[in-house]
């Protein structure tokens, strides 16, 4: 009777099981080589300190609600950290492709989705860890969540979600290129313009008009502003001429759009390799 139903339920159950097994495998790597985790935190910490103390004094004219630069900066750092962290997904997959271990996985009765799901989930957890650590560093240099724990959690959740979406972009690039050094190089081609030509670190009003046009529509700007809405509150949202609902909606749409494009593409390339 349940012949038609059971296989699908079974498949989903095993897909989750296999994804979990491979997530664990990917996380063990960080336990075995703690320096990996150290290095993925050193860079964001450096960004926090440099921006906070080198540029902090020079950046004035911040929107109301974000008068203290560190409060303006940290949401931008969260987004940037999550996106930088996501490049590890493609690098990890390229490593697995070259080492031949993906061939082993594909010869096993393992769910097809598990290799990608295991990798992106592990990277999501690592990103969560790094963003939490950044929060701690932020607190040491004067950052404060202004709007209470729920909105603070939403801000961190948004950063991690952004990282997850870019993990799939990175997976697509990693699988398509497959060659480790090229994947690393390719990541930085898009990641720097994307994160810096945005409101992540400075208000976009100081940029030349053509760059402003790009920065204004850059999803990183929208995410950074949404996160500021969560950490700084209504004053800030009104000052930049937005609404909380509008920001959250556009943030969500961008994440959904990136996932909708990258997930099927990554899976298609994975099946082909």
């Amino acid at each position, binding site marked *: 009777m349940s012949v038609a139903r059971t296989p699908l339920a079974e498949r989903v159950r*095993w897909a989750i*099981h*296999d994804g979990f*097994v*491979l997530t*664990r*495998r990917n996380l*063990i*790597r960080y336990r*075995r*080589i703690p320096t990996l985790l150290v290095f993925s935190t050193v860079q964001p910490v450096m960004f926090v300190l440099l921006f906070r103390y080198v540029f902090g004094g020079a950046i004035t004219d911040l929107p109301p609600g974000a008068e203290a630069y560190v409060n303006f900066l940290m949401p931008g750092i969260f987004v940037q950290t999550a996106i930088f962290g996501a490049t590890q997904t493609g690098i990890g997959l390229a490593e697995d492709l*070259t*080492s*031949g*271990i*993906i*061939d*082993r*996985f*594909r*010869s*096993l*009765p*393992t769910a097809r989705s*598990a290799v990608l799901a295991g990798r992106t989930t592990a990277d999501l957890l690592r990103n969560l860890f790094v963003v939490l650590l950044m929060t701690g560093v932020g607190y040491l240099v004067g950052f404060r969540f202004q709007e209470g724990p729920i909105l603070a959690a939403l801000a961190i959740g948004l950063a991690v979600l952004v990282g997850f979406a870019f993990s799939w972009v990175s997976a697509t690039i990693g699988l398509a290129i497959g060659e480790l050094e090229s994947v690393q190089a390719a990541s930085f081609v898009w990641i720097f313009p994307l994160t810096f030509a945005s409101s992540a670190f400075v208000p976009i009003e100081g940029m030349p008009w053509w760059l402003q046009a790009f920065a204004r529509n850059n999803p990183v700007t929208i995410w950074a502003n949404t996160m500021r809405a969560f950490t700084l509150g209504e004053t800030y949202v009104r000052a930049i001429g937005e609404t909380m609902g509008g920001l959250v909606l556009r943030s969500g749409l961008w994440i959904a759009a990136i996932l909708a494009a990258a997930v099927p593409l990554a899976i298609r390339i994975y099946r082909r390799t």
Partner: protein
Amino acid sequence: MSVIEVEGLRKSFGEVVALDGVDLEVAEGTVFGLLGPNGAGKTTTVRILTTLLHPDAGLARVAGYDVVREAEALRHVIGLAGQAAAIDPNLTGRENLEMVGRLYHLSPTEARRRAGEVLERFDLAEAADRPARTYSGGMRRRLDLGASLVGRPRVLFLDEPTTGLDPRSRLELWDVIRELVREGTTLLLTTQYLEEADRLADVIAVVDRGRVIARGTADELKARVGGEVLAVRVSDRSRVPEAAGAILGLGPGGGKVDNNTGEITIPVGGDGTRLLVEAVRRLDAEGIELADISLRRPTLDDVFLALTGHAAEEAPTPPNGTRRRRRSP
């Protein structure tokens, strides 16, 4: 009963024809050796049979499952150790094996039990809880082979299992393989060494440029080479043709002069010692000085020579060049 049935398998990579109509049949519980030089199409065949690659044409069934249409079911009953060791260097040996067990959908306890067994069997128990990155090349290879056994596969595929192993490890591995076969596993292995195929395989197929050019038992193949081979080198390269003229007629089936090395090789059947003495005598009579003369077991090259009239050449493009480099630690 045939566990592996392959008919007219074809596969091209762009311009390169990797498989040009391969037919194979492997009986249950036997060892089948796929013997061939670099680029012959051994790995391509294994990858198709283990569902990693789709053929362009032809049929292949393993354990009764079509490798394309029933790939998912097939994966439950096969094990693969590919040409490059596919283990995670950051996991310990035990974690690697347990992970593979879990991915075969064994329970955690069962996966742990089998990981323990495999570690014992491959002499890795002592290193079991060290990250595999600290293993020697041979240990990695053994762990990789072990991983292909965790699922207790009915059909096992080993792609050049002993390449990169020292002679002792190679012998040990041969023992493990024989034991598996005694337990009923069907094994398809690829190798570039005639000796290995000879020691392990019940039936050997010789592949060259994507085709099976001969098949049979090791004895049958060697009979075609003619047992041992007499190899002669003379001191004065300019006298090679003269020397060849004097001794090429000795053996039952002609012989060959390698223009690069100046080596003359003659299949000598079971009559090696007498013909060696005879060759020395004739060359001495002609006043040709010998640099080296020896009797040796036929190599893959000799088999190729006998079968095709040409030596086992490399394919035009270096096959798996990158893989090979990656494997060396």
